[in-house]
């Protein structure tokens, strides 16, 4: 982006063009950075409302390309000149402050406006319009989390803060009408890749809790230490689908030897193996 001289008002936007759907997404942190690099007069006020406005702007507004072309400002990153010539006096926190600008006809836009510097921006902040709507949806569960991530999560500070040292199902309460809960928990919390309920079960609500036979730390929270059996879904609040997954994962872990248990006793009849002895149980 390069600076045009002689402007009274300007807004700083960093813009990425999405060539596929002709939409432009505007991102914030780069904006902050570029504002930081630019020297303003003492009278300049960059209000906080601008920043919050910018963040609102981020995911929800995809400005049509044609509109913005007429109202765009370009900055050259690292340029020492843009402080001097840039005379920002005042920002009005209006939705489309570019309206105050004089239109330029020979504005160039290109798909690689940001280049490598933009990559240093924290991931997830500058995204294309199509993925933003869906991946930032907190109820989206299409992303598959590997079990190793889940294992690391169980040892992390975030987990400790959320659950402490209790099992993950302890603080969960099912919602139901009346005194007694229905015999069965719901069939599933996740339909078509999204959470379809307001009170998802302990496993579905936390995407980083993955039921896998190697994730023994999580599995053992659902196994009774006294009877060695997997707790009923009525006790833990798991949806039926996750309960089945849990049972399978526990069985698999026992088969792999990742979870140990008290093996049933086998009594031998010695007379079968040593035909010569008289007493069957001992020699």
């Amino acid at each position: 982006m390069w600076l045009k001289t002689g402007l009274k008002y300007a807004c700083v936007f960093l813009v990425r063009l999405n060539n596929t759907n002709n939409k432009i997404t505007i991102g914030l942190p780069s904006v902050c950075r570029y504002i930081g690099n630019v020297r303003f007069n003492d009278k300049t006020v960059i209000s906080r409302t601008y920043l919050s406005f910018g963040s609102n702007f981020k995911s929800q507004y995809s400005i049509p390309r044609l509109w913005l072309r007429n109202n765009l400002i370009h900055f050259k990153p690292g340029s020492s000149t843009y402080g001097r010539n840039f005379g920002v006096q005042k920002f009005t926190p209006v939705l489309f402050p570019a309206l105050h600008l004089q239109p330029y006809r020979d504005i160039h836009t290109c798909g690689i406006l940001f280049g490598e510097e933009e990559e240093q921006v924290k991931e997830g902040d500058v995204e294309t319009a199509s993925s933003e709507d869906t991946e930032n949806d907190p109820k989206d569960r299409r992303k598959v989390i590997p079990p190793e991530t889940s294992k690391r999560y169980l040892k992390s500070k975030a987990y400790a803060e959320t659950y402490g040292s209790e099992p993950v199902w302890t603080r969960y309460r099912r919602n139901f009408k009346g005194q007694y809960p229905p015999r069965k928990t719901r069939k599933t919390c996740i339909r078509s890749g999204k959470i379809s309920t307001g009170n998802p079960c302990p496993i579905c609500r936390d995407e980083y809790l993955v039921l896998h036979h190697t994730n023994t730390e999580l599995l053992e929270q659902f196994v009774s230490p006294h009877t060695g059996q997997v707790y009923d879904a009525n006790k833990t609040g798991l949806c039926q689908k996750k309960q089945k997954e849990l049972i399978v994962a526990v069985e698999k872990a026992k088969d792999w030897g990742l979870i140990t248990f008290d093996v049933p006793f086998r009594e031998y009849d010695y007379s079968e193996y040593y035909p010569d002895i008289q007493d069957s149980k001992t020699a």
Partner: protein
Amino acid sequence: MNMAITIRNIMLICNRVIVKQQTLLGRPFMSSFKLYENRKNEETLEESETIKDIDVEKIFIQPKVQEILKRIRHINMDKVFRTVTKPLSLPRYQFLTEEELQQQLEEARQKAEIKLQMPPVLKPKPSVTEILSYDPELQGLDNFKIVFTDITYGISDRQRLIVVRDTDGTLRKAKRGERHRMNQTYFPQNGRKHKLPIMFEDEHLDNLLQREKYEFVLDRACLQFEPDDPDYIKIIEKTYQHIDTTRSFNELRSTRHFGSMAFYFVVARKMDNLLLDMIQRKLISDAADLVRLYCIVHPDSDTAQQSVSEGDDLGIVKVGINKEVYSNVRPDSDTAQQSVSEGDDLGIVKIFLQYDSRKKGNLELALQTYEDMQKQRHIVEEGVKSAHGHT
């Protein structure tokens, strides 16, 4: 023909086994499990050969051997009757007199003996099938084998008649894998699986052994396999060797597997680490028992010869006692009595050290430490006695 008559008289159920698809649940049954075939480890090969030379079955079942093994195994009631996972039940409280209490304790000891029953030590028996009849007229009849299982009540799994009619018309007795599958189908045992649990495969077994879950592995192996299955023997040998390298013999003490493990080490001539462990835990009588067992199992070894030539039966030898310890001791005191028998035990252990041990240095050092400690203890005891006025 006799076989045919018995088959006619008893109830039968047929099973189809399709020849081409010999997979169970998508996993070839026992074919990916090649423990018996991959005998690359020379060490284990050597041991298996020594075991082959010695008739382990005959020796293991001798009353003397069983006695020794039970003695060295000990019974720790807290370990035997530790809390296990079982269906929840309310505790039971009883008021007992002194006699009743003793009675209950006696019953508990008997229950412990049952719980600590040693799994049989047998020679590995390869799966050999006996052909009952050739009927080439039947070939081409079906594209599957038929398995006939005798499900009469009251017959044990090992003696049950299980025969297979192959596609080429041969009637033969079932192989080990087929027998296991049929027995588990009609007489399922709790905890035993149709398919081999994946934990018995090499890498997963290594993982378990690294985590030192020896009792779990051995218990599950007992349940899953027959004692003369070569795969079972391979697994338990691997476990015993791992215990040997980590010196964690105490994990198995007071469990059913300790006797079999000690027997394995004696037969394979690898008992030095176990002996060292016993001496370090001041179990000299156990150490002597182990040496006596060694003499029984290897009667032509130097140790056995020496102990016999010293004049007594394999049990008692009076040789190499540290005279300073016992010179001033009263013959009728408890210390004296103990030290005399201890002297015998020490003696026989020393004979073993001299002739047949492979870790002479370590063992000698341990024995020396033990003797020094005993000396010190004796001196202190004497001092205390004289202080109290009993000279």
